[in-house]
């Protein structure tokens, strides 16, 4: 499944400072890809350092907003959100500076 993943607010530093990743994520035949599956895939394939800055227990750490097709994942079921071909997923750390 083709997805566009994007990291911002400093999270890109965990993936070689690359913000936009066009990826192909395999799922089992007939199986749905959920955000829970995607997080595991991201941890294995994209996060190169300090995974604790991305995950805490089985979800993203506090202070990270997750957007599926420009929409807060709280509105689509968080970890249970089902992804479709060409979806865009953004992981962004909230900023405090000024």
């Amino acid at each position, binding site marked *: 499944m083709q997805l566009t993943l994007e990291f911002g607010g*400093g999270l890109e530093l965990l993936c070689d400072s690359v913000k936009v990743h066009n990826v192909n994520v395999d799922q089992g035949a007939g199986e749905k890809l959920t955000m829970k599956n995607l997080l595991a895939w991201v941890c294995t394939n994209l996060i190169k350092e300090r995974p604790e800055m991305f995950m805490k227990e089985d979800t993203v750490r506090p202070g990270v907003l997750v957007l599926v097709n420009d929409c807060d994942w709280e509105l689509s079921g968080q970890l249970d959100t089902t992804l479709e071909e060409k979806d865009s997923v953004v992981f962004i750390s909230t900023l405090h*500076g000024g």
Partner: protein
Amino acid sequence: DSGFGHGLSPDMIYRYSRHLLLPSFGVQGQSGLLKSSILVVGAGGLGSPALLYLAACGVGRLGIVDHDVVELNNLHRQIIHAEAYIGRSKVESAAAACRSINSSIQIVEHKEALRTSNALEILSKYDIIIDATDNAPSRYMISDCCVVLGKPLVSGAALGSEGQLTVYNYNGGPCYRCLFPTPPPTTACQRCSDSGVLGVVPGIIGCLQALEAIKIASAVGEPLSGRMLLFDALSARIRIVKIRGRSLHCEVCGESAAFNRQLFQDFDYEKFTQSPLSTAPLKLNLL
């Protein structure tokens, strides 16, 4: 002639004529601004342009809170402060700049750090609050105080080459804690003084904060509530995304929340976020 019964003097009509000419804004929008009061917390990178545009556009009463003094390394982005003010209070400096471009509005100087002990009293005097601070505990404190007082909060942030903007606690929308119930680890809370910031990025976000406050004060347009603007300066990409609404379970604004003035005053925001509300000026070890 006092301007269509809207209390605009001939001088005001001339000064604000480009707002009055605008059909979607007009005399009604300008009257709303002139009757409103807005507090900007932080006279730094975000506060500089926000304050200049709010003063220029005719906000009736404009408050500035900050405890800091102007330093040379602020000036690459904090355009409200002139070199002549280095070493002096940021509030005095910002107030002087605002008065120099609009002597017809009221500017109120709060030369102190915002704390749980003074926040309720200071914020209660204003209609709209702008969070232009630079640290996590201040952001929780200001949002909680806005919930307790029922004030809309225009929140901006900038770091590196990115910026973020939204309006909290407006018209049934979410508060800061609805989005971020648990504070991030302190290692994720960098400040501009630690990590650097492209100076014009807080400039853009601060202008957008002024715009959102103007829209709320004048009751014109759709404020950025329930939505968040994400700005990436280097790639020149801007997203406006839909965020969650008010959380029923929010500990501060939720249905069964018991949060009130007393709990606010007793809350330890530094302990909660494990970071200080303000830091001593950083000694630069770059060299």
